[in-house]
């Protein structure tokens, strides 16, 4: 779909830079000065019957999908080479789609859980609702693109990744991205909105996922001063 040039520029060049800058600066600021607010804000204590069916599919789905995006972003050529054979393409597309659907189902369950339970509503902020809405749109548009505009993995690697690299190379070239189907464009724009809002939401818990646990000693003793 074609938009006026200035809108293209705003959405595919201005917005990404603004969003990424805000994301970096505010996340760091929040980490440094408002460390207390970094939390996954678990709600399992308040509602535990549908909790599993919301959190687990959503997280497995969204993490797999994000990992897929990251792989495509890092080694687009390998993805294109992989997709050279139809069978392999189908496998990749089917896997991506299933994880996307998993995330979408989980997200729906998660939103339903918050809507239907009074205790859950009490711990859901306006910002949470906005986050869930944006995530829902993101996951839904992603699944839509995967189903109706084949083959997403190929054109992501061939068209979107070069655009993303051009952003990181400070030589922005929205070029072909503006020719993508509307759903795909919306998916991209919404992604940047999410990135920009990220540091203002509960999503910051992704930044503090505790990997050192896997190799630290079990017991921790702290002394005043060093020992």
């Amino acid at each position, binding site marked *: 779909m074609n938009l006026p040039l200035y809108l293209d520029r705003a959405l595919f060049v201005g917005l990404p830079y603004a969003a990424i800058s805000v994301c970096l600066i505010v996340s760091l600021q929040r980490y440094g000065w408002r460390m207390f607010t970094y939390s996954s804000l678990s709600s399992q*204590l308040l509602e535990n019957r549908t909790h599993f069916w919301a959190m687990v599919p959503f997280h497995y789905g969204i993490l797999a999908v994000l990992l897929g995006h990251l792989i495509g972003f890092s080694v687009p050529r390998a993805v294109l080479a992989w997709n050279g054979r139809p069978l392999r393409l189908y496998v990749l597309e089917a896997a991506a789609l299933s994880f996307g659907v998993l995330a979408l189902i989980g997200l729906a369950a998660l939103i339903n859980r918050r809507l239907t339970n009074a205790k859950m509503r009490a711990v859901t902020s306006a910002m949470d609702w906005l986050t869930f809405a944006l995530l829902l749109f993101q996951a839904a548009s992603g699944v839509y693109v995967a189903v109706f505009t084949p083959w997403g993995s190929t054109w992501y690697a061939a068209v979107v990744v070069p655009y993303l690299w051009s952003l990181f190379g400070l030589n922005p070239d929205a070029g072909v991205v503006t020719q993508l189907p509307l759903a795909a464009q919306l998916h991209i724009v919404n992604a940047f909105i999410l990135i920009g809002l990220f540091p203002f939401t509960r999503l910051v818990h992704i930044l503090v996922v505790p990997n050192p646990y896997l190799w630290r000693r079990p017991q921790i003793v702290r002394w005043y001063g060093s020992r």
Partner: protein
Amino acid sequence: MNIRAQISVVFHLDKCLGCHTCSLACKNIWTDRPGTEYMWWNNVETKPGAGYPSLWEDQQKYKGGWDAGGKLKSTSKSRIVANIFHHPSMPTMDDYYEPWTYDYQELFNAPEGADQPTARPISLVTGKHIDIEAGPNWDDDLGGSPIYAAHDPNLAGLTAQQRQQLFAVEQLVFFYLPRICNHCLNPACVAACPSAALYKRGEDGIVLLDQKRCRAWRACVPACPYKKSYYNWSTGKSEKCILCFPRIETGQAPACFHACVGRIRYLGVLLYDADRIREAAARPNDELIDAHRSLILDPFDPEVIAGARKCNMPESTIAAAQKSPVYQYVKVWKLALPPHVEFRTLPMLFYVPPMAPVMAARQGDALNHVSQDLFHDIEQARVPIAYLANLLAAGNESKIGYALRKQKAVRWYRRAQTVGDVDAQTALRMLREADCSAEEADAIYRLTALSTFEERFVIPAGHRELGVEALQDPLKHKQQAGFGFIAGPRRGL
């Protein structure tokens, strides 16, 4: 040897009157904020009973503590990767209770009418009217015991006759179990925390939870077998008993200790060997009590003192350890025992088991509880030894028997001296059979019945100045530090 100091406590269950003053002192200071209303860092439960949260002792349900192989039952490093999104053994608010207040305005605003106005309960979570279904002490004094007390996990292994003995109408018997965090030597909460937010303070062993580092992965809640780490649903942080460290550092007893009406609480330093923690926690069940006790070192032993100095322990801490009432109760007299030592966290709170009323035997028309054997009635006590052993000795009945016999001997010995209806010979024989000397009996009597505030709470100096010195030139610190910046505990966006 790696000698460390631990602020440890003894609760004398024979003196607890179940008044809940301790719980309220704690609540008023620490847990009246949004998200903490349901937490009772100090709670008093009736035993036998289901406790708070309901059935906390049932580790089939909650998976708290360690197994004998040194693995956490709730999570492991590999399992947390999957469990972090949904913790399989996380309790829910229903296992505690939904906190509430009352809309007192309804009392004032009610229109004039024939009936009394009422204030309806309002949930402190949702702010809506609720029907109260449970509270933190729903089975206080055995209320509803066919539902609650009958499911007490400590009843496992009791014979039908023993159970009947506990619940027989008109012979019903119970005692109180006040509970706070045990500030364990091998804390499951600390080991479970993916963010390393929980830690044990080196200087005094208090287990704390760093609010800034907690990320609500909530692994500590299932991991603690005593359910003494709580999740604040409002701030999205876990919280737990801090043993009132700001009070301890300034020489005051923790609030629940200070408030205790029955004077059942004792607090003091124990020195222990930190290198042997793991080994002690891995012993078979029936050796655990002795292994735990063997970690505690004699603060009068010159070798221990030299070792403590080598580990940079301040002289004042060593001196406090020598005056510690806890050392007397736990190590010297062997009267106080750790709760559920089979959970293997090596709790540093010890209970003196309660002397329960004797079970009277019906002889013809008369109730009779006189027996030739002087200790006979301990076996016949209405709270069976087997029950107390499940609670305080990992099933090891001899440990409970020892503590009860000694208590009883001390009573008779005192009775011989003050009332005179027991002859001195019998009293001394009882002391001998209870492994107790006359001097020891006097000391037990004094500390149990007459002790002053200063004798019950021997609080080591906080030595914050040493901490400052380790980090910075104290003069500079004095000029710069002030009160620092304080960020309110506000929930994330």
